[in-house]
């Protein structure tokens, strides 16, 4: 965990209401894909948690959707401005159980953390299948980027404007060794229901602090109470109450 002052490199519209923000600064505390940073946004009292999407030396990439006041303010950041963030928060995904054919399942702005994960899995030469779900074609992003990593990319949109028409859970491959998922809770629940392997799922919660101090983000699991910001945001499928 670190308190870092970042400088904006760029901040560009990527898809409908979705922006990519690239920040320069000390990324040393970020250890794993699936971790997040907590941004101090001007005019907002609480910080805003955003997943690490990509990391290259001292450049941190975040992808966020404008859904309210804080993300709207973020979208107005321009090159050269600075923003403070607590970095290296959360447990992140554990690549060890990935197996040879890991499956990545992402929905909407749950997709970003899967990118750094895919990158690491590809670096370890895994056969990565990425299944992405979006509302419509206009919402989709990073397809090319995943393909360029050498992943198999499958797509579903709710309105059928790109790829399969329907839910992302309808396009999962037959065979995979372990899955990694991030997306809205109904999607995560569906993923849990249709997958047969072990897996890891990343959750969201309204956060007070983002680093384990307030107990605001607690979540009950079969292995006890977990703080989404600390013992999460990634939980193992096996510990979820849903699987009971």
């Amino acid at each position, binding site marked *: 965990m670190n308190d870092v002052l970042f400088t904006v490199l760029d901040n560009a519209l990527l898809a409908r209401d979705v922006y990519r923000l690239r920040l320069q600064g000390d990324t040393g505390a970020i250890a794993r894909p699936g971790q997040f940073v907590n941004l101090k946004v001007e005019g*907002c*009292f609480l910080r805003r948690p955003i997943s690490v999407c990509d990391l290259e030396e001292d450049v941190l990439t975040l992808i966020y959707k404008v859904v309210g006041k804080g993300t709207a303010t973020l979208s107005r950041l321009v090159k050269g401005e600075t923003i403070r963030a607590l970095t290296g928060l959360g447990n992140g995904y554990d690549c060890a159980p990935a197996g040879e054919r890991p499956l990545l399942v992402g929905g909407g702005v749950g997709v970003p953390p899967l990118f750094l994960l895919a990158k690491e899995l590809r670096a370890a030469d895994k056969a990565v299948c990425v299944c992405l779900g979006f509302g419509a074609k206009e919402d989709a992003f990073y397809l090319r980027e995943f393909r360029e990593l050498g992943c198999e990319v499958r797509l579903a949109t709710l309105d059928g404007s790109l790829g399969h028409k329907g839910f992302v859970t309808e396009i999962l491959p037959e065979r995979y060794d372990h899955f990694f998922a991030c997306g809205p809770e109904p999607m995560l629940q569906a993923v849990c229901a249709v997958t047969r392997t072990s897996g890891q799922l990343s959750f969201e919660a309204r956060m*007070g*602090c983002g680093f384990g101090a*307030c*107990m605001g983000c*607690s979540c009950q699991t079969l292995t006890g109470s977990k703080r989404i910001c600390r013992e999460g945001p990634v939980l193992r499928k096996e510990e979820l109450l849903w699987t009971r």
Partner: protein
Amino acid sequence: MDALKVSLCGIPLDNPVIPASGTFGYGHEFAQWYDINCLGTFSFKGTTLSPRLGNPTPRIAECSAGMLNAVGLQNPGVHEVIREELPKLRSCFHKPVMANVSGFSVDEYVEACRLLAAEPQVGWLEINISCPNVHGGGMSFGTDPASAALVVEAVRKVTDKPLIVKLTPNVADIIPIARACEDAGADGISLINTLVGMRIDLKTRRPVLARQTGGYSGPGIFPVALRMVWQVAGAVHIPVVGMGGVSSAQDVIEMMLAGATAVQVGTANLVEPTICRDIIMDLPRVMERYGITSLSDIIGGAR
């Protein structure tokens, strides 16, 4: 740094800055951010006799000048705290700590306090008779002088350690409650706990919090907190620990001028994890600016 020293119920503090209960865990979370030995002390997470899972989530809602929480006193229970948390704490904090205790019956308060008071590192007991989040919980004790006195008298019997009673601001008149605590044997009063508040999500058209209402804290409550500290400090003869929205050295000084002997910082820790250290480092500069040579001199100075 004698200029910052104060004494709280007979125990000297290097400075009056104390992270508030529920916003600082059991300390070690913050030891990752800075050496927490710079603190006056800190008040640990509200602890109950039995473990508690707390309320359903969402437990947090943002406000324009603060936040709501409905954590619901999630804690591992006093036995686990003594077994697991206090040993961990000892390794990163070498000063007396303030043990914050909640309960749902007088007996629970008494038993939890008795156990914690026996721990050498516990310097003060801070009994929270004010948590607004729990049905049938602290609320009833803290809104009525007689019930408040009941708890204090009972706890008083099981410990000689300084007993600080933490009051709720959700009352029409705070003075009789503070006086009842003093008369019942309290060594200090701390206030304020959170104000009951609410937010509704325009998108879902539902309360943001699963429990609908929650405790409002942060800068937005500072004027109310300051007023109550002023009122209570003027009404009792025991020290007052002031809190509510404090987030700068200036705020600390304002609370002390109102009558606080020490000042707790809560919500600000959640947004700026190093805020207490930063305030302590900033205090000498701000004191100089306002011609203050010693903090202990200004306690109640606005009266």
